[in-house]
């Protein structure tokens, strides 16, 4: 495999930043602005983009560390990162618990006696908090970070294999995905059910991202740029768009032949349906075909807000989750008029950009001020985090 280029690909930061914005918009319930997000126009959504790019950047950053400093040091860094994300998750959980404790104290409506039962777990916080620390109790919309933690925790041996035998590594990941479908593997959740993002399924996209970062993308580039593949990708995206329209306009559903419906439904997000992977791949092919790596606009001011968010993805993600709670709070307590929803959505993105810019600035200051470690030892020095 050819050695990967050493300069960070700004397209990754751009699209991860955009994915984080979309995740934020989608996580505010009943948000009119979430109509613009890609999940409404096809099978896949921002989660695929986020997981793929996270795998890509993890391999990019820790792959180099593993080559330079060996397996042990690189693994330690990966696990340190997983720990940071775990702490971030617990922090968000504390905010979530505060929000719902407020709702349970302030909201009473005979219409929703049943629904308020969802707060019953506050009656035994010991069990709930313990289950949350074990990543088994995961409140709504707080499933991505636990997935990310687990994927990173299992990443060192996979990275080791990817550096030596990338094809075998990718094949083993695909095998795990297939076995998951065959034997219905998943991790149990609390109080019932299983993980919303099945790690045995989603690891495929993460490993595929890592594989691309370590030279796979270059090997594929001849295929990606072929007219046939681009044409197929466009055709598939149009198909997915047409199907998605039948979800919003049920009267169109009669135009979907029964055998097509039987073949594609249900489109399983938990287990990362093949249709979703294909949709993501089609989007990726189109993106790579029309957005070149050295596209000058990537360095322009216009894309900077998304890129800076993508470069500090963990912090931006956490701020986004917090803001989506806050946004929902505004909708229920103040106003849920469409104008408010638009304002909350844009204000939230502005805050995410501001926080990312602040972190970016602080890192630069730290670096110039001669911090305790030389810059070369920092993972992600090439312009952001894994």
């Amino acid at each position: 495999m050819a050695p990967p280029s050493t300069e960070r690909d700004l397209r990754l930061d751009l699209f991860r930043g955009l994915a984080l914005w979309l995740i934020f918009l989608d996580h505010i319930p009943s948000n009119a602005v979430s109509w613009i997000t890609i999940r409404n126009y096809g099978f896949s959504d921002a989660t695929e983009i986020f997981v793929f790019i996270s795998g890509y950047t993890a391999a990019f950053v820790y792959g180099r560390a593993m080559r330079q400093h060996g397996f042990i040091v690189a693994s330690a860094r990966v696990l340190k990162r997983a720990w940071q994300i775990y702490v971030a998750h617990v922090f968000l959980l504390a905010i979530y618990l505060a929000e719902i404790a407020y709702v349970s104290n302030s909201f009473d409506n005979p219409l929703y006696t049943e629904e308020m039962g969802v707060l019953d777990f506050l009656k035994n916080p010991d069990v709930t908090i313990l289950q949350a620390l074990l990543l088994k109790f995961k409140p709504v919309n707080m499933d991505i970070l636990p997935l990310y933690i687990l994927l990173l925790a299992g990443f060192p041996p996979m990275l080791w294999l990817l550096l030596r035998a990338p094809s075998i590594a990718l094949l083993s990941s695909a095998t795990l995905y297939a076995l998951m479908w065959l034997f219905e593997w998943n991790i149990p959740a609390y109080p019932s059910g299983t993980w919303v993002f099945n790690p045995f399924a989603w690891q495929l996209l993460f490993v595929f991202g890592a594989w691309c970062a370590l030279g796979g993308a270059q090997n594929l580039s001849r295929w990606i740029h072929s007219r046939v593949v681009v044409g197929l990708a466009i055709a598939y995206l149009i198909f997915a768009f047409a199907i998605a329209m039948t979800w919003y306009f049920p009267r169109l559903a009669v135009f979907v032949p029964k055998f097509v419906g039987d073949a594609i439904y249900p489109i399983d997000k938990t287990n990362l349906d093949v249709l979703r992977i294909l949709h993501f791949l089609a989007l990726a092919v189109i993106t790579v075909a029309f957005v070149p790596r050295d596209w000058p606009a990537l360095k322009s001011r216009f894309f900077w807000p998304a890129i800076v968010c993508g470069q500090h993805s963990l912090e931006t993600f956490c701020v986004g989750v917090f803001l989506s709670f806050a946004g929902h709070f505004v909708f229920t307590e103040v106003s849920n008029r469409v104008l408010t929803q638009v304002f909350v959505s844009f204000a939230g993105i502005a805050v995410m950009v501001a926080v990312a810019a602040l972190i970016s600035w602080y890192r630069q200051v730290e670096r110039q001020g001669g911090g305790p470690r030389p810059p070369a030892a920092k993972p992600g020095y090439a312009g952001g985090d894994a």
Partner: protein
Amino acid sequence: MKERLLLLALLMLGSAPARAEQPAECRVAENLLESSFRLPRVTQAISAKHLDVLVVGAGSSQLPGSNGPANAYPARLQLALSQQLPGVQVKVTTDVKAKRTAAEMVKALAAALSASKPEVLIWQTGTVDAMLAVDPDQFSQALDKGINIAQSAGADVVLINAQYSPRTESMIALGTYAEDMRWVALQHEVLLFDRFSIMKLWGELGTFDFNSATKKLDIAERVHDCIGRLLADLVIAAAKPEEPSINGSR
């Protein structure tokens, strides 16, 4: 949204006199009633002048208080059906208990069906499954099983999905379960009463304020009354001998 409002305007132009007996607040959601499948056993029962309905549900099919049973939507459904089907003896029996998942309701279903021998089963479910995050596959399987049991007991089936509940939206992920109910309904060619979308539309249009914190029952009673009426509209439209068209040209 735009499309809905347009439809709404068209509906009001075309159908204002047709359903004058309905309170205006309910009517805004009429275009969300999809009667694409038939209820043949209900059609027969109406012509035989005797209709038995069984409502199976959980906590959102009941109201608290001593007048709860009379004001909850199953009783309102019985009233609306009796009014709209003069001469037909309508009887609605209920098997409603709070905090039940779809699978738990299925366990009690055969007994309830053989006790009341209904022509149509109206089955409200999905909320508790979403709250407990039951495996969506198991939820779909429970729906499959319940529909099969009802149909082999000689009953048509109407499913009702969860309530729209803005205050708990960030805590209960209803989406997957609502979608599952839609697909299961489509696969079995049974009707879905899309309570979630109807209530959401009411919330958007300001028909009802679902955010208000109150101990009073007035809004809850009006919501249940509207649901009962719209359910009756759906059942009657889907039982009409000719092509059903509650959305189409009127």
